């Protein structure tokens, strides 16, 4: 675990301790379960985003995709009565295809990631709204899918199953990002795509793969979100989730310029964001200030991180100078 990640962990623990002191229910089983469920949902999303950010890209269509894929998923199983495993596979595949198309537009047609995914943001939500004719996709009364519901919204040993899924995904993705050849390529491309290409790396394919991973994880979390709300009004469902995901990655030490960040960081970033949301409600802070608190904490976090870096560099410099000065007369 890097120093940055450790700092974030400590911050999370300190905030938790303070909140607990004010309202001990923070540590109640039900609150922890609720919060860890949301951490899982947003965490899966943010890990996907992290893979794109590391290449120096960005994926802005995440929120709209959550709305579109969630709508389709519920529609498939509730209205069209597809078997849910089939619907599940179809949705994940759709996520992969959309990720592929984004990656393809970006690498082959050389469009800017911001532009491509901004268009995605506009298009997918529009399509979802059109699909439901600006209505809602939801289950009928008494429509139940016991296995699916257990897997998505159920618990095992007191832990939400979604959270267990996050842990598994995080471990797998940690290996992929930090230990695999593919992960190394991602970092290299994020640092300097041109140079990576000159080293014989098929940068286009790697970048496309990053968008596909993002698409798949987004599709997965779209299903989780759909099963969490059990009803989707596409006009607002998932709005601004891309900002959550980006914020989690940034808090976790990712640079939007690419080539920097760790998987542990993005997970911790998600935890901190959810903790903050939880805190606002638990401490009775007016909920209108919810986002303001989030924004404030991100800003302070990034500032402290930045200033801490400057401070350390300066101190190292000072020391080096002092040593030199001390050494000079002896010569």
């Amino acid at each position, binding site marked *: 675990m890097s120093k940055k990640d450790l700092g974030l962990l400590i911050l999370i623990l300190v905030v938790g301790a303070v909140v607990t002191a004010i309202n001990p*229910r923070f540590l109640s089983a039900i609150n922890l379960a609720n919060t860890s469920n949301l951490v899982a949902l947003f965490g899966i999303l943010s890990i996907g985003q992290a893979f794109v950010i590391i290449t120096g890209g960005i994926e802005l269509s995440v929120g709209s995709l959550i709305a579109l894929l969630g709508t389709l998923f519920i529609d498939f199983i509730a209205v069209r009565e597809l078997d849910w495993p089939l619907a599940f596979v179809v949705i994940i595949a759709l996520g992969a295809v959309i990720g592929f198309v984004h990656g393809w537009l970006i690498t082959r047609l050389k469009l800017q990631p911001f532009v491509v995914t901004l268009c995605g943001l506009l298009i997918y939500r529009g399509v979802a709204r059109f699909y439901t004719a600006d209505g809602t996709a939801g289950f009928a009364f008494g429509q139940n899918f016991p296995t699916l519901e257990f897997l998505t919204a159920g618990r095992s040993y007191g832990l939400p199953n979604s959270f267990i899924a996050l842990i598994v995904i995080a471990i797998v993705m940690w290996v992929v990002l930090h230990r695999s050849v593919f992960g190394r390529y991602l970092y290299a491309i994020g640092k300097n795509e041109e140079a990576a290409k000159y080293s014989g790396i098929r940068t286009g394919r790697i970048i496309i793969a990053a968008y596909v991973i993002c698409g798949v994880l987004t599709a997965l979390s779209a299903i989780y979100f759909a099963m969490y709300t059990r*009803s989707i009004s596409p006009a607002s469902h998932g709005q601004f989730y891309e900002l959550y995901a980006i914020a989690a990655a940034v808090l976790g030490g990712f640079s939007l310029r690419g080539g920097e960040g760790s998987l542990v960081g993005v997970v911790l970033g998600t935890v901190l964001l959810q903790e903050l949301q*939880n805190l606002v409600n638990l401490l009775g802070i007016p909920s*209108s200030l919810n986002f303001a608190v989030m924004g404030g904490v991100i800003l302070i976090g990034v500032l402290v991180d930045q200033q801490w870096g400057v401070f350390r560099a300066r101190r190292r410099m000072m020391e080096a100078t002092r040593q030199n000065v001390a050494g000079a007369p002896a010569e």
Partner: protein
Amino acid sequence: VTRADDKPTLAFVVNGASDFWKAAEAGVKKAQGELPDYNLELKYPEQSSVAIQQRLMDDLVTAGVKGIMVSAVDPKTSTDGLNKIASETALFTTDSDAPQTKRVAYIGSSNVDAGKQAAEIAKKAMPNGGKCLGFVGLLGADNAKERIQGMKDGLAGSKIELVDVRGDDIDQARAKKNVEDALVASPDITCMVGFYSYNTPRIYEALRDAGKLGQITVVGFDDDPITLGGVKEGTVAATVVQQPFEWAYQGMKLMAAYLKGDKSGIPANNLIIIPTKIIGKDDVDAYAANLKAMAGK
């Protein structure tokens, strides 16, 4: 502030941020004066979406809230989520009912009746018939659907038709733009209906900008000051007013009594309907005065 060791808390959770709920806030305040043993609070979700409202309620439950009265964003499809809340606190609904959940009772308007009253206004204002266009916040929300249905039912057999309803996701700039676009795209429209509290004022302003005030019949809902001004001026035919103050005031007291074990206030059908009223030119002064008096309390 909600504290674990404090007095029990009762929360009133609305469906989205608009001035409509300021009257409910006043109602909560009045109830608070009479319920010193409880903490009462009114909460706005960040956005009018199921997920955000659900999360707000989950957190309230965690914080130890004893009773929640909610205007659910999408009551028909969030049955499970609402039931989860109902299993841990006393859950009441308001504004939009959720009859299929385990909620204790609904207190609010009959939205179907309110729609029918809107039809009455239209029929009275346009004896020779006409073509109406509606504007609403959340097209997918239940109270909107009921009002639209109620109005259609009420218009059945008359020469008036409600041809379409446009949604705006509770974005006021879009609400106004919708009206402007309608004026351009469908010049044959003779009447406009504002189904949510802020829609009527947006219609009023767009008509004023276009110089069409008075030429198009406006049917309103609720009692935004601009709506009432328009009614008084004669540019808004009349408005169907709801009583969010009473929902909140009576609702909170009912909930407190229920928690103390007194279930006498809950009728057999679990519906406590606070009637909606048509306010026309003649009643508007008295109504506005009464409104002021209530807010003062």
